[in-house]
């Protein structure tokens, strides 16, 4: 067994983890010091989440050693991990929506707290210690994301945690809420806690992290005090190649106005109006929950919205449901491909032909011969890796599954393609293929509305971006010629964003 210095709270050596077909982690080694805010940067798919899930006990490592607070950790569960003093606050938040704040802090420890009164009293104390004023009897479903995070921090403190891991905490926070969080982080540090802060936002890392580790493709590239990094060095190490090679050149075929949307109003959206030009990729930039998905769902007829107008090629079209959207020439790749996009037990062929059934039937009857060609055609055109078109689509990797959905729509050649997080959870190679595909679509006269939480992605792929904040369009920019900070300010609802 390794001996570690007492100033090291967590030592990871040569930890590896594989999933079927994917090497998620490759001999990762990092030493985390006590009382330090240790940032971990990396792009999506770099392995940060996987590493954290191994530490917290959701996954089990394949090999390597983990020593926490002097003790070697082998097989563990999330609860054991918390009891040892290692708490993790996930991006998706581990709270029960239907229960109160107090009960969530002490979930499963009702008896320890001596019932409801003890639970709420102790929760109150913990929340006060981090300056959170929310009532402990309020239901989680009624809280904002930043307040929910505070509840999670209170939960971590209730376990007398020594190390708190925060996984991308800032993706849904406003600037003020972020400032609150930073204050709490400094407070926790002063109390002697160690913090691991995971993010792909460099500004945050530079602001309050003491030591930074860079991860890429499942490996740790470097670990140094922040002061020894330059920004460019960090970016280069994160990305591993020059930016030009990560995205194809921006399409330059923007033409006249293809679609005009006027006045979408729902209880979440306020007076959304915009245009879309032929040959253009229009990006929607905003925080999680700002309303980007709501806008495209309203446009696609997926949600019941009235009172807005959509004009395509100058003519007014009525889109009241997805079928009418399809007829009007729209295609939609939804956010969650497993739940909303695919019929997992069905074959690759069936999933690809789903939207074009009318094309291969005559008088209401399906012509199998026509359908057979579709699967093969798209598999070839998009290089979908599958043993055959008859296998259940659940067997394919994420990237190939996504390609099936793209192929489904390509079959009917929509003029307007809506893509909601098209490269989420996809490995780097497949991402590039999808970018190339997107470019091809617009070069051939189509137009794409792109929603992505990956700022580099949406900024590099789009000709134009709209920033969306709290259900309103706060700005319209050309990413090629606008500084990133300006766009981000508008997306965070700060003054200075051009309307």
């Amino acid at each position, binding site marked *: 067994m390794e001996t570690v210095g007492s100033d090291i709270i967590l030592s990871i050596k040569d930890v590896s983890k594989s999933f079927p077909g994917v090497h998620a982690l490759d001999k990762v080694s990092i030493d985390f010091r006590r009382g330090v805010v240790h940032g971990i940067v990396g792009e999506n798919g770099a392995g940060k989440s996987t590493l954290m899930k191994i530490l917290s006990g959701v996954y089990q490592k394949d090999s390597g050693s983990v020593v926490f607070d002097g003790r070697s950790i082998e097989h563990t569960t999330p609860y054991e991990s918390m009891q040892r003093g290692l708490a993790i606050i996930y991006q998706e938040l581990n709270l029960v*929506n*239907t*229960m109160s704040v107090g*009960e969530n802090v002490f*979930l*499963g420890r009702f*008896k320890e707290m001596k*019932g409801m009164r003890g639970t709420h009293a102790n929760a109150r104390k913990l929340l006060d210690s981090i300056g959170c004023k929310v009532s402990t009897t309020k239901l989680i479903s009624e809280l904002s994301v930043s307040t929910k995070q505070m509840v999670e921090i209170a939960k971590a403190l209730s376990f007398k945690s020594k190390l708190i891991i925060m996984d991308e905490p800032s993706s849904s926070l406003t600037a003020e809420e972020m400032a609150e969080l930073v204050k709490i982080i400094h407070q926790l540090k002063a109390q002697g806690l160690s913090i691991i802060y995971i993010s792909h936002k460099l500004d945050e890392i530079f602001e309050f992290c003491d030591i930074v580790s860079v991860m890429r493709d499942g490996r740790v590239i470097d670990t140094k005090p922040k002061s020894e990094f330059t920004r460019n060095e960090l970016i280069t190490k994160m990305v591993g190649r020059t930016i030009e090679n990560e995205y194809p050149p921006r399409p330059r075929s923007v033409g006249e106005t293809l679609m005009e949307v006027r006045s979408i109003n729902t209880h979440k959206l306020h007076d959304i109006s915009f245009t879309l030009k032929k040959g253009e990729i229009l990006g929607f930039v905003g925080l999680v929950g700002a309303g980007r998905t709501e806008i495209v*769902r309203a446009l696609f007829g*997926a949600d019941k919205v009235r009172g807005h107008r959509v004009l395509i090629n100058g003519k007014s079209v009525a889109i009241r449901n997805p079928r009418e959207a399809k007829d009007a020439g729209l295609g939609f790749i939804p956010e969650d491909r497993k739940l909303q996009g695919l019929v997992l037990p069905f074959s690759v062929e069936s999933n690809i032909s789903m939207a074009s059934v009318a094309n291969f039937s005559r008088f209401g009857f399906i012509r199998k011969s026509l359908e057979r060609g579709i699967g093969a055609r798209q598999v070839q055109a998009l290089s979908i890796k599958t043993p055959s078109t008859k296998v259940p689509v659940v067997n394919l990797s994420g990237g190939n599954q996504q390609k099936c959905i793209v192929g489904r729509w390509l079959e009917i050649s929509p003029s307007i393609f809506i893509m909601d997080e098209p490269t989420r959870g996809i490995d780097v190679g497949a991402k590039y293929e999808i970018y190339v595909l997107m470019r091809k679509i617009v070069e051939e006269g189509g137009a794409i509305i792109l929603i992505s939480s990956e700022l580099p992605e949406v900024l590099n792929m789009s000709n134009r971006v709209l920033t969306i904040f709290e259900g309103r369009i706060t700005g319209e920019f050309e990413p090629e010629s606008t500084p990133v900070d300006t766009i981000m300010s508008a997306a965070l609802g700060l003054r200075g964003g051009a309307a």
Partner: protein
Amino acid sequence: MNGKGIGASLYSIVTRQKAFIFILVMLVGMIFSRSNFYSAYNLLDMLNSTSILLILSFGVTLTIIAGGCDLSIGGILVVSGILSIKLQDFMPMGWAILCAIVFGIAVGFVNGFLVVHQKTEPFIITLGMGLLLTGVAQELTNAHPVPAKNPAFMMIGNGDFHGVPNLVMIMAVCFALSYWLMRYTQFGRNLYAIGGDYDVARYSGIDVIRTKWLAFVISGGAAALAGVLLSSKLNTGSSIYGELTALVVNCGVVVGGTSFAGGIGGIPQSALGLLVFGMLDNAMNMLNITSYYQVMLKGAVIVGIIWMDCFANKRRREFV
């Protein structure tokens, strides 16, 4: 806010307190009927006849809050009722009753295995279990009600203590017990967590499998108790109460505000929901509505209430 805001909040009040509103409507309606509805005798009688259903509902509520449901309670009800009578031919009354309740617990255990351990859809598999037990019940009795021979047995369900019927008192004890269980014990709070978010509960160290399994065991036991009491009250073991009861009780729980989605609701809410049906039955009898119309009205009420629950869930649900 504006008119829209008022309408929306009114709507949410109606959908969340549907049981309360239904009862209010009935109470008001019955004022205008020229019947004995409001006599002390009738009100007590109403409570008495609903007691059995109430005891059933306390058990079922546990399973629904945990995110499942139990449609086998009708079958458990009849079989344990029959067992409690038939076994008295072989053993003293006390032991017969105990065996009948143990039977219910055993069925609950099997239900728990299938639903929690094997992860099958609860509603259809407990429905099948109920069917199985109904068949068993019919077989045991040859479809003829089995009369009880022990007068002491009959006293359990029909006697009273200073004017308060035994059944009502037993029901009150069950109410208090299950209320305490759900609100003041770790087990009960864990059930809410499991129903609210299974994975979060699991990650928090709650033994989700054992806890949810236990909910089904308790539901089975409660159903068996109700069965014994029903047999005692009618002084016969009969097989006819099966299917309809299961669905009515589950619906009643939903009426009261415990949603099939899990994680919300509670014992008092379920009691209120069952009272809706109990009051409906009683009111219909008071108004001398013929039995065919009664069945139709009950069916329409069930459809209406479940419809409202679905509609409310539709608004709660995010994306389809």
